[in-house]
């Protein structure tokens, strides 16, 4: 990994990367949302002045080496176990700020039990949940959040209800648990969405400082490589196909569920990518 050197050529610096983001060049694929979410997260940590007391937990998946990019103390965790590891950290260091950074396979498949029980205990940390509806690192297999009809390397005919069941809406599920305080779904597919995400992250850290309970931010993201699209197509596909199933917006604010129309499962349709 090489460091990035940006020459200023004597010009005034009007913008810098967050100091909590390291100089290391990221390995993420072009157009992937991880880099943007990393930047938002670290920028918020800078803004709140909490770099020295924040501890991150990143388990498996594309983001497993996010400690190379985040200039804070971090622990890597086993598949799905991030919220258990974070519980261990937070319980012995209650005055530190702790977050997990998990993908859909990690949080919504192998780690479902740990996720639900951490939220139910009201663990006072932030869960960042990157949902791109696919297993990125292992080569584009079906995730629990893969859409109906979605073609992946393990659903070559498209995800079928009969064999693979429905996409799981974990965020709505944990919002029903009394231990959760702030549950929101955001995205990073355009600049407005990125600004909204930043506000959500700020809120979540402040709630954690006030010991309010579990906060979870789902980020509907993309996987241009896994989806086999260029970055622009991926973002367009995301808006058209991901949002009907995973609509952006707050689900629970200050411990209260936001009333929304019942979201029905879409009918099986062609969402091949």
């Amino acid at each position, binding site marked *: 990994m090489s460091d990035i050197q940006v020459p200023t050529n004597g010009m005034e610096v009007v913008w810098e990367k967050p100091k909590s983001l390291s100089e290391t060049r990221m390995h993420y694929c072009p157009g992937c949302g991880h880099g943007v979410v990393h930047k938002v997260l670290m920028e918020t940590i800078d803004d709140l002045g909490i770099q*020295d007391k*924040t501890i991150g937990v990143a388990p498996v998946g594309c983001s497993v080496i996010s400690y190379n990019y985040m200039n804070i103390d971090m*622990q890597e*965790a086993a598949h799905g176990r991030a919220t*258990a590891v974070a519980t*261990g950290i937070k*319980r012995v*260091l209650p005055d530190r700020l702790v977050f997990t950074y998990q993908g859909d396979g990690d949080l919504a498949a192998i780690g479902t*039990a740990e996720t639900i029980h951490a939220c139910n205990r009201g663990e006072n940390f932030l869960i960042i949940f990157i949902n791109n509806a696919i297993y990125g690192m292992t080569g584009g297999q079906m995730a629990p959040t893969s859409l109906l009809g979605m073609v992946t390397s393990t659903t070559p005919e498209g995800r079928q209800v009969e064999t693979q069941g429905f996409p799981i809406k974990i965020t709505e599920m944990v919002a029903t648990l009394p231990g959760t305080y702030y549950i929101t779904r955001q995205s990073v597919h355009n600049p407005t969405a990125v600004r909204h995400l930043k506000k959500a992250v700020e809120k979540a850290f402040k709630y954690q400082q006030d010991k309010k309970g579990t906060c979870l931010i789902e980020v509907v993201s993309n996987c241009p490589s896994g989806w086999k699209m260029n970055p622009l197509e991926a973002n367009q596909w995301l808006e058209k196909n991901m949002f009907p199933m995973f609509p952006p917006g707050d689900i629970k604010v200050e411990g209260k569920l936001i009333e929304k129309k019942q979201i029905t499962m879409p009918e099986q349709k062609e969402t091949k990518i």
Partner: protein
Amino acid sequence: MSEIRLMKGNEAVAEAAIRAGCDAYFGYPITPQSEIIEYLSDQGRKRGMIVMQVESEVAAINMIYGAAGAGARAMTTSSSPGMSLMQEGISYIACAELPCLLMNVNRGGPGLGTIQPSQGDYFQSVKGGGHGDYHLIVLAPASVQEMADFVYLGFDLADKYRNPVLILTDGALGQMMEKVIFPEYDPKAHKPPKPWATVGKSSNRSPNVITSLHLHSDEMENINIRLQEKYRKIEANEVRYELMNTEDADVIMVAYGLTARICQRVIELAKQTGIKIGLMRPISLYPYPFDIIAKLSEQVGGFFVVEMNAGQMIEDVRLGVNGKVPVGFYGRMGGVIPTAEEILHSLQLFMKSIAMKEKV
């Protein structure tokens, strides 16, 4: 000040954990060791420990990972099926070199098995259990006193080597009541600084990262080389065992934990029949006392291994003996505790077979 109490083995472990300055216990109840989490939920919490009953053994071991990584003295306990669930996390902890204390109150298996005492988890405890090349330091108590003593020793060894320590005991020792003396122990004097812990990055250092991921093979090999070097140090410095009546013994029994207690009775019974029997009791099952077995092989007619399993530690005894003398075995399985009389009977048959071979 030291204190004398009459306690169950499981309770003695819990009381020792509090006195050893254990900061956090995460666990899941399972017979025959649930008294530990019950005792700590009362006494531990009252005396400042973090004690949590969590959703599964998988979660518990990963909470230990997080807490140990954050610099705490962390501990969990379980029994056989629960320990199997923890193996994933133990492998990660071993690679990340996090100090912590684990205890397996072994019950009969495989599978759900029985709640009766067993030593069927020897292989899992000593030879691995999780994936990869790693070792736990494994201590085998044979009394309620040692159940308590090994908690202090276990935490100290864990901190010294940055390695998980496992106390391997069984349902009988966990449930048995005996006198136990709690020594004076100042946790503050025993807790080393942990500059590697993830406690929040101060401005004068680079981030601390706790991980078992090393994507490049040469880097991963270097981690393994470092771990193996540590294991060689542990093997050189931490072998523990006890010898009884071995000086002029014709045959030496080898047994640990509960079976070693029973073998002490076998020595007495054997004396009455005029047979000279000794006992070598391994206290550390890893590192294993191979050297003393090799040395004793020069002076005895054979070794007789007694275990509450189908014969697991016998493989290590054979390694130490290295073919020099015969090695016999008596074992009961599935939670059955052998009697001194049946062990002696089997031992006598073994000695007869040695004598027959010598005649031939």
